């Protein structure tokens, strides 16, 4: 029963629904496979486009590669095997998530290194704060001057002294 149904479906697809099917035909048949296919396609770069994944692009190459992914999933390949197939053909450039290699160590370790550096600098700055004496409180005259400066009445201070 199933096989003839699938055959009928295939004919319907081939005819483009001219027969007047009510329920639309998914472009991919199996929803789990379709999900996997989209997830994979999102991680792969369309090589002829301007920074689009092949899931997003409608370029011929992207359409072709999406079909490739569908076929390979249907053939029972794992995600890793599909990705390997793509990198064998197009190199690492096709991957939006660059693999960890000697050339990309800095890329992947960079954020952690930056964070470490920032924390170290921060700690040093906080320690320095402890060592510097607190600034003397403002005198009355300085307060009055500050008030005038805030209002923009005076242009006093260091600059005027010149």
């Amino acid at each position, binding site marked *: 029963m199933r096989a003839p149904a699938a055959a009928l479906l295939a004919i319907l697809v081939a005819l483009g*629904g001219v027969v007047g099917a009510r*329920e639309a035909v*998914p472009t991919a048949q199996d929803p789990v496979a379709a999900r996997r296919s989209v997830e994979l396609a999102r991680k792969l770069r369309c090589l002829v486009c301007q920074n689009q994944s092949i899931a997003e692009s409608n370029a011929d190459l992207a359409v072709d590669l999406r079909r490739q992914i569908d076929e390979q999933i249907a053939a029972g390949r794992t995600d890793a095997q599909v990705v390997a197939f793509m990198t064998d053909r197009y190199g*690492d450039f096709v991957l939006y998530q660059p693999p960890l290699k000697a050339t990309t160590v800095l890329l992947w370790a960079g954020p952690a290194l930056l964070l470490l550096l*920032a924390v170290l600098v921060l700690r040093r700055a906080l320690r320095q*704060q402890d060592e510097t004496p607190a600034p003397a409180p403002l005198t009355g005259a300085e307060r009055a001057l500050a008030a005038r400066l805030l209002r923009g009445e005076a242009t006093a*201070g*260091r600059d005027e002294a010149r």
Partner: protein
Amino acid sequence: MIPEIGQLALILALLLAVVQGTLPLAGAQRGVKAWMALSRPLAAGQLLFVAVAFLCLTWSFLGSDFSVVNVAKNSNSQLPAHYRIAATWGSHEGSMLLWVLMLSLWMQAVSIFSQSLPREMLSRVLSVMGLISVGFLLFLLLTSNPFERLSPPAAEGNDLNPLLQDPGMVAHPPMLYMGYVGFSVAFAFAIAALLGGRLDATWARWSRPWTTAAWCFLTLGILIGSWWAYNELGWGGWWFWDPVENASFMPWLVGTALVHSLAVTEKRGAFKRWTVLLAICAFSLSLLGTFLVRSGVLTSVHAFATDPARGLFILVFLALVIGGALMLFALRAPHVGGGGRFEMISRETFLLANNVLLIVAAGSVLLGTLYPLVLDALSGGQTKISVGPPYFEAVFVPLMSPMVFLMGVGPVARWKQAALPELWTLLRWAFAVSLASAVLTPLAAGGGSWGLRLGLFLAIWILAATVASVRERIRNFRGAVHERLAMQPRAWWGMTLAHLGVAVFVAGVTVVGTYETERDVRMAIGDTVEMGGNVFRFDGTTEVTGPNYRAARGTVTVLRDGREVLVLHPEKRTYNASGMAMTEAAISTGVLGDLYVSLGEPINARSWSVRIYHKPLVTWIWSGCVLMALGGLLALTDRRYRLRSTQQQRETAVTSAA
């Protein structure tokens, strides 16, 4: 004739900028009042000439003067009038002219609103901005003349890139550039303060509203860009970690850190050096963003310029500006005194921690954006890699999650010294509520990822912690609740609103990321697809003719319980001049979610491939950004920035204190 007037106006603007960048600066150093007095009229003159040049270019576009290279390349006689105006900044040359126009506008605004500043300070600020203006005007005149003539004139223009023919193009670049260029004000204030040796709370108060204003514009600019991509690109994404997006996102991250750091410098006198450094970094990243997008080193939809001379010019300019600023910083910063002291647990520390996380995040985005370029260059083109969303998400979420968590703690922590037990007492309910919703919601919804739990926790956490902070804030005031709320300063309300915006944003991102559904189907006339209680029926396509395109216009009827509730018209356009095909999605926007339909490819005469999405809470993403920008605007209207009206009060307050 008109283009020549524009060209002349640009040259005159350059001459004024040269004077403005030198004389008032020298005047401030040597105390020559007459030289300093030049800065304001010069700023006005520059705005006049740059505006004339800009209008001349707009005029050439409106009149479709194809004897101008720029117009011939980026416009078309069929292009609708509003896109002809937008095409003024659609090209590389035009967008640089827009940059200079924005710079002149900011300069004039400083000249008007900062008249109360000490003369030296104002002269230095305007001079520094004048120097930046010199760089960009030279860049325009030497490498990217927008008025270059074409002889003989073209009979017809090439048309504006169809991707850019969207209402987003009218608003996105001006907003974004207002933000980018707005950071030049913060930068100029920082440099002026370093030059003058006066780096104190007063300086922070002066430059804070300018920074907030620029940040608001940048937030709006990025949000419009994101919304535009969602509408125009046809697959319903809202952020792609495209290098060009990153170029605008880095200044935003650093700008956000700067806004918060300035708050500490103004209130507590602390973090002075850090704040100055951030001001320099924010503007440097704006320049770098311009360089990345304009030099064409990135291959992406926005980079329409590929000329090494331009790249070299901006690179040298970048080195001069950033290098010069950092050198000045290195010379002067050691002499800047420390500020108010604070303990390990205090609002200062929380803000500092958030600053660090924001900066590391910006640094990581920079790393991910430049790494492929550097690797490519170092390996002589042998090693090409792509760094995309998987990388940025892996880096960004761990950095931003603690940042967002601390956002709940900071506003209730005391300045100078806070106590953890006290914080716990204030926030324990907020913590319990957010934890409970993070655990229970996925259970109720029948499952969910860890990302969903984290996102929910953070969104509810900010919301609940904000409620706690409002309660704590008004506890010590008298009167009815609404009176006590009305007593709070607008700056504080601004912060609260902006933080709530982050909660809304996080909720939107989380929910749409988890519950978004997508169907990719081929549909013949009469076919239906069911998704989330909605039935989509494809009623075929008709041919329509637009002003400068032809399109297949689909009709998709949405039925709920058998009744027709909505008709959507996605289009597939082919533009006449370029022959480029564009997908125009049909979107039904709702508070709870969007229905998004876009036409793929025709399969045969009667059927099409159609993509249908349900995107729950997707509008919350942009609403959150709008709230952030509104928060900034509200803070800008705080009474302490309206100096003159409160002069009397402040004087009495200070005298009595003394």
